[in-house]
């Protein structure tokens, strides 16, 4: 693992029964970069993201984050050490306000428990004010400042996607895993997400982005890894990936030559 890398997966493998969902994938993510993870449906992108987040253990291989071996760490341990994620199929706390949803992201950073809550100690009140302040800033950052006290269940779909991001970034994680943040969004909304990812990188976050919207991926990623059938098919800059014949074939199901012949 080179010093410039924040995260590295070494031949990460995950079996589901006989299926090799992720099969010996190597991935190194440079500190401060946006690393795209693309591939056709069923290529293993979300599985790889889940492996990085620690949803299930690796069948083989190893994961390193910020110089530590995190292969055996639990999801919560990884979250506390600075890896946060969003979910492809939105997992918000629907009965809570937007602000409280984001505040949950700060739980690991703060200390006051049951007794402090009951006694409302000065420390608890300071901490609570700090939580509200930081959560509010995260909401403003994603553009949901006006929805702080709205229940998550009443937010529009596009706003829910942004709320997921706010909850994931509020604790300023070193590594942010975004699982299809633009899925189901219209052009304006997905442009906003693209711009948001750019601002996050400017703030110093390292991001692994799984996304189907090619315009989002190509405009915001510094590097891209292409997966197909659980294996790494290609790896490089957006420009290199766009011209890679193997990638084009995996996506379109025919070779470049066929394409040319038809033309």
């Amino acid at each position, binding site marked *: 693992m080179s010093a410039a890398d924040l995260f590295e997966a070494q031949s990460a493998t995950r079996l589901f029964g006989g299926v090799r969902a992720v099969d010996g994938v190597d991935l190194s993510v440079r500190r401060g970069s946006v690393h795209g993870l693309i591939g056709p449906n069923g290529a293993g992108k979300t599985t790889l993201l889940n492996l990085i*987040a620690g*949803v299930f253990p690796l069948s083989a291989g190893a994961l390193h984050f910020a110089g530590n071996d995190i292969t055996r760490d*639990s*999801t*919560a341990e990884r*979250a*506390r050490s600075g890896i*946060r*994620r969003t*979910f492809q199929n939105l*997992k*918000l*706390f*629907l*009965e*809570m*306000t937007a602000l*409280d949803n984001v*505040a*949950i*992201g700060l*739980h*690991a950073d*703060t200390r*006051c*428990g*049951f007794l*402090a*809550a*009951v006694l*409302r100690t000065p420390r*608890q009140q300071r*901490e*609570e004010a700090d*939580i509200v302040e930081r959560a509010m800033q995260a909401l403003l950052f994603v553009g949901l400042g006006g929805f702080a*006290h709205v*229940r998550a269940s009443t937010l529009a779909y596009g706003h829910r996607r942004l709320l997921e991001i706010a*909850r994931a970034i509020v*604790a300023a994680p070193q590594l942010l895993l975004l699982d299809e943040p633009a899925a189901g969004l219209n052009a304006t909304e997905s442009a906003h997400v693209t711009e948001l990812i750019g601002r996050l990188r400017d703030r110093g976050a390292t991001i692994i982005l799984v996304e189907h919207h090619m315009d989002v991926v190509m405009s915001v990623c510094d590097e891209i890894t292409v997966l197909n059938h659980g294996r790494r098919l290609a790896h490089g800059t957006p420009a290199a990936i766009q011209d890679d014949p193997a990638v084009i074939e995996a996506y379109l199901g025919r070779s470049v030559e066929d394409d040319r012949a038809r033309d």
Partner: protein
Amino acid sequence: MAEAVVSSSYAPAAERRTVRRVTWVMLAALVVVPWIEPDKFVLHVLSLIAIASIVAMGLQLLLGGSGQLSIGQAAFYGIGAYTSALLTTQLGVPFPLALIAAGVVAAIASLLMVPITRLTGAYLAVATLGFSILVYLLIKNEEWLTGGSYGFIGIPRPVLFGYVLRDAMYAYYLCVGVAALVYLVFARIDGTRFGRAINAIRQDADAATASGLPVTLLKSQCFVIAAFVAGLAGSLYAHEVRYLAPNDFTFWKSIEILIMVVIGGVGSLPGAILGAAVVVGLPEILREIGDYRMLVFGGILMATMLFGEGGLAALFAALGRYGCSLWKRLALRSPTSARDAGR
């Protein structure tokens, strides 16, 4: 699950103020009750309701807060009752200490629940039910300790600051006082880091874990807190009734506690008290119809559930809002407001 324990933090400030006002009015009403109705039996039943509401509020935190369905709360209640009875009779421990000790011993016993907090739903429910049955069998069979089926007799009345609470009125104040304290304590976690965290693990455990929440620790804390207050309630019960029998702590008692929380409204703290009042009070009101009372009781349970998931708390809130709007409409028509409008 309709409302969360911390639900009022989502309510507008005006509504929260109303809730606070209603709380203080209710507390004041509870203080004056013995002057209006000094009947010993009525006060005794009200004390039992207060005791039951303490256990129910504990389960409300567990179920309505952290989303853990326990059918084993009678176990902690029983442990508290026998702990307090044993400490006061065998070791001469003063009542206030025995009360706290009952809570602490029940809380320690609840640490046995830590390994099962990773279970959810029906699996957790059956595991806690198993614990309830286990504790019942211990109480029934360990005669040297608990008196077994003969029961535990000769439990002294509560003594506070050197005064024996001989009068039903003082016992009432003790039980209602502890219940009010538990209510105010639980109401405090509203909108705090702890309150948000337990609500989060109920609503989406995956998202909570991904945010770094220690789910097992939080769930265990809820079990310990719920068991502590159940232990307090057990102690109050022991010294209120002054005779304990294993049959007071069967799994049926656990189910009664669950009924209190569900008909009161899962997630509502005042709902737990309403539920306790119905489950404890209704059979007393229906005493005259003898054996039919459980039939009527069962019917009322089913009818309450038909009102929807919010239980009695939601029903009362709806009636309250209806009453308010009616009042406003009437007030607008009144001559004073008409004159104000004309100015």
